[in-house]
């Protein structure tokens, strides 16, 4: 191989736990670092998802328009897309909001539970009715697993998937095989 | 009552009938009754009294004459001649009475030689529209209970089973299981604590089906007689009629029929002065479609939640309270007396090699003559649709006919010349079912049809087993998504794989057949699904290149 495989990781609607688990590979990370080029990751300061990625590990459910945009972009620039962790694979905790309307969600999160004054709040209640400011991406009606939006090549469930499962998956992919993580992890692991 | 006394009663009734110059029959089955035919009958009666000819004219309510779309129907038999009037209203009453001695009323006349009547062959419905279902004497006058006498006095139980077996009769409740074989199994199964049961399945839950209702409303004694013969043949002494509660008229007539039959001794202890006893009770179904499934029906009669259980063991060996139980459909029982009476050879001469006798169908949908028809097995679909049914109204074009209700499928026009029998209908991707026939013209969307039936199955699933409970709900959602134009080929693929799962793994017939409407519309009208898909064009183009091969016979 002339160049090292280009690996990226990305983060949608998740808690970053899967990335933490990835970092928990500890000294194995060093081995990995020698084998791949990490071209984009929340842990690497690159803003735009690059072209020609060989493997992308994506954490989190698809919840907002931004997530939608991101996952489509990632898919179009990636050879092998790995759904990393329960949020990406099943929707998991982010999808627990799917029983409620977005309106009631906002009300709960930004009015009833708000503890800092919000822009435009009426003096009487101390609570804003405008919801989050315009810069926050719009929520989709439902938070959904990645494979319901784009094709996913490998599913790695777990909350978070244990480091050795992640390592196994990456190692297998580097060896040119499509891994089966079912013996190393499961929903809720 | 002894057999001789019954014979005398029949003779007396026949004499009274022939003494009358005119017999006016007013259909008072549910269809015509909903258009006030009861009042028309009363009005006719008073008009005749007023005219002073009450001694020459008999007016009576009769059961269904079949052409419900043209109701209320009135038929008049006068000295060998008969006329039939359609759409009779209160306003027509005096004119009808006048016409008795004059010319028939052109305006109301319904020619009885029209194919709708002429092409039918009636066994099950032969008394419907002819006798007053509320008078056992009427039934006896046309030969009723003679078959029971014959069975009890001239035949052994095994002989009766043999007769039914050789007649080739198959169950009319849907699956077409050989009736004689089932009777034989129950006859041979050892009674438990001396008990065996007979059950008549009158739960008729298919949307649009009303064959059984009509028989029960128009000729209830025929069913009672069939059940009594069955009880004698298999060695049962107790029976249940499981009728859906939505059929109040049928229930009322059955109750009356049972008490009349008990009174004259054709039901109850020591029937017709023999040692044979048979008691019948009515049980009402609360309208769950699944309670028509035999094991669910048993659970329901036993007072439990109406849910199917895995078979084997079959009810024939392990049925009500663990006793051998014979369950047959209303129409199946209605065929018994004529077979016993006229012999198996007569019955076996009607129909095809493997499907004997006749079948009652309820014609509905985009067809001129909606109503009830009885035709010999093996008749061509075209004859039913075009001749008997009178074709598609408003110059429409035939597209498909849906048979077998939610368990069946759509048969497209290339099968117009197919004979209607159990095997052919199955080969065409549907089932004979209990007799619903919904005709569709070119304006019908087949995805719509599939969605409609899936919604039915989804809401009627009892929820016991996973594939049916969740699978039908998922299939319905997919159909809706496709219907709305939001589906893609992945959704269609998932729908098809669910069809396979649900049909192969569900516990009872409801789930096992729930995918049929989808499968059959996919088989013949796949392009209608593809046209709705976001990405269907590619497959559509590929199919277009193949045109002619697709779905051809």
């Amino acid at each position, binding site marked *: 191989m002339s160049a090292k495989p280009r690996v990226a990781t990305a983060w949608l609607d998740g808690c970053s736990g899967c990335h933490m688990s990835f970092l928990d590979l500890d000294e194995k990370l060093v081995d990995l670092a020698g084998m791949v080029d990490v071209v984009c990751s929340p842990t690497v300061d690159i803003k735009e998802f690059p072209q020609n990625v060989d493997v992308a590990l994506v954490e989190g459910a698809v919840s907002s328009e931004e997530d939608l945009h991101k996952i489509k972009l990632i898919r179009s620039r990636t050879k092998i897309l790995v759904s990393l962790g329960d949020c990406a694979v099943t929707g998991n905790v982010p999808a*627990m909001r799917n029983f409620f309307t977005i309106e009631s969600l906002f009300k709960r999160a930004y009015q009833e539970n708000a503890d800092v004054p919000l822009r435009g709040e009426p003096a009487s209640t101390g609570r804003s009715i405008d919801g989050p400011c315009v810069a926050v991406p719009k929520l989709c009606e439902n938070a959904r697993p990645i494979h319901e939006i784009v094709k996913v090549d490998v599913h790695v469930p777990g909350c978070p998937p244990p480091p050795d499962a992640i390592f196994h998956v990456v190692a297998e992919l580097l060896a040119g095989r499509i891994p089966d993580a079912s013996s190393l992890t499961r929903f809720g692991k | 009552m002894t057999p001789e006394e019954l014979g005398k009663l029949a003779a007396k009734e026949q004499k009274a009938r022939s003494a009358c110059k005119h017999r006016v029959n007013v259909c008072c089955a549910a269809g015509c009754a909903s258009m006030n035919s009861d009042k028309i009958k009363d009005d006719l009666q008073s008009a005749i009294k007023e005219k002073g000819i009450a001694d020459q004219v008999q007016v009576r309510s009769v059961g269904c004459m079949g052409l419900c779309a043209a109701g209320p129907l009135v038929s008049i038999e006068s000295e060998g001649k008969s006329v039939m009037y359609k759409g009779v209203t209160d306003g027509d009453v005096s004119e009808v009475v006048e016409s008795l001695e004059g010319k028939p009323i052109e305006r109301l006349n319904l020619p009885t030689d029209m194919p709708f009547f002429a092409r039918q062959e009636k066994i099950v419905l032969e008394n419907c529209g002819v006798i007053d279902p509320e008078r056992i004497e009427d039934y006896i006058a046309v030969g009723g209970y003679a078959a029971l006498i014959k069975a009890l006095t001239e035949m052994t139980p095994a002989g009766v089973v043999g007769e039914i077996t050789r007649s080739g009769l198959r169950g009319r409740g849907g699956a077409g299981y050989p009736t004689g074989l089932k009777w034989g199994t129950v006859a041979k199964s050892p009674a438990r604590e001396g008990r065996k049961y007979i059950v008549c399945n009158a739960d008729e839950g298919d949307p649009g089906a009303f064959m059984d209702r009509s028989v029960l409303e128009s000729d209830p004694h025929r069913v009672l007689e069939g059940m009594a013969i069955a009880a004698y043949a298999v060695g049962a002494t107790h029976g249940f009629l499981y009728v859906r509660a939505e059929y109040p008229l049928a229930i009322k007539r059955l109750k009356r029929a049972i008490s009349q039959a008990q009174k004259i001794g054709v039901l109850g202890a020591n029937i017709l002065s023999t040692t044979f006893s048979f008691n019948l009770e009515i049980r009402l179904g609360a309208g769950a479609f699944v309670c028509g499934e035999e094991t669910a029906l048993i659970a329901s009669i036993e007072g439990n939640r109406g849910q199917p259980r895995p078979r084997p063991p079959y009810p024939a060996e392990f049925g009500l309270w663990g006793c051998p139980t014979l369950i047959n459909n209303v129409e199946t029982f209605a065929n018994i007396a004529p077979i016993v009476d006229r012999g198996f050879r007569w019955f076996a001469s009607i129909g095809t090699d493997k499907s004997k006798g006749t079948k009652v169908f309820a014609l509905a949908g985009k067809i001129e003559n909606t109503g009830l028809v009885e035709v010999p097995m093996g008749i061509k679909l075209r004859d039913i649709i075009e001749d008997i049914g009178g074709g598609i109204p408003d110059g429409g074009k035939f597209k498909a006919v849906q048979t077998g209700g939610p368990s069946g499928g759509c048969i497209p026009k290339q099968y117009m010349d197919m004979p209607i029998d159990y095997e052919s209908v199955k080969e065409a991707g549907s089932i004979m079912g209990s007799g619903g026939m919904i005709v569709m013209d070119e304006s019908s969307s087949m995805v719509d049809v599939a969605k409609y039936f899936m919604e039915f199955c989804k809401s009627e699933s009892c929820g016991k087993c*996973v*594939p049916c409970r969740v699978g039908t709900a998922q299939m319905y959602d997919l159909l809706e998504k496709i219907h709305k134009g939001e589906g893609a080929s992945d959704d269609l693929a998932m729908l098809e794989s669910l069809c396979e799962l649900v049909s192969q793994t569900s516990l009872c017939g409801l789930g096992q057949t729930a995918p049929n409407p989808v499968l059959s519309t996919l088989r013949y009208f796949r392009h209608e699904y593809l046209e709705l898909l976001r990405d269907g064009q590619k497959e559509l183009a590929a199919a277009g290149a193949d045109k002619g091969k697709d779905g051809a016979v």
Partner: protein
Amino acid sequence: MTTMTASPSSAAHDIQVVTLKIDDQEVSASRNQTILQVAAENQIEIPTLCFMPGLKPMGSCRICLVELAGSPRLFAACVTRVSEGMTVITDSPRLRKYRKQIVELLFVERNHVCSVCVSNGRCELQALAVKLGITHITQPYRYDKMVVDSSHDLFRLDHNRCVLCTRCVRVCDQIEGAHVWDVAGRGIDCRITADLNLPWGDSDVCTSCGKCVHICPTGALTEKGTAVAEMRKQPDFLPYLTIMRENH
């Protein structure tokens, strides 16, 4: 049909032992045993979910379906009795595919958010997913909103995690004799209900014995006061009770 009689000459017909083949293994069994029982005796594992030794089998989850040579139909091993000469196939690509699909349907039917479930790691549904190699659910999730009944002093019923196996219904009826539970509704709207739709805590007949909680395969019935992954179920009382009753 052969009918049994007590006469010595028919003793040969009374023999209750049959031989059959399960996955190419010749086995013998007693005539009134089910395929599942005989397979288990011979260390052949057939996956199950609604089945629970000691309760009357239902044949309703359809996970234990097996093939019988010569029949296109599939049979639930838990309710199908063995017979002489039967050839049973307990594992095939077709069976594996169907089992996977059925388990997937259970995952989409309710809201099994394993990561926040008190039974996480000790759940039979999860275990089935692992056994069948399910790493994701291909079916769209239903996201039907479900309630949690916390009205009982000691226990909790979370409909989000119920698979409608009716083990609770059966144990409470057949073993405890209280008959608190039933299934209400039809199709996808089926729910386990206490005492004709009362909050569980209002049930007059519940003895708080906990049997239903401990044989529930998932996190649907649990003890209160347990946090994620803390619920430990002890279903062993059931085989014990069954043996004691049989020997009584």
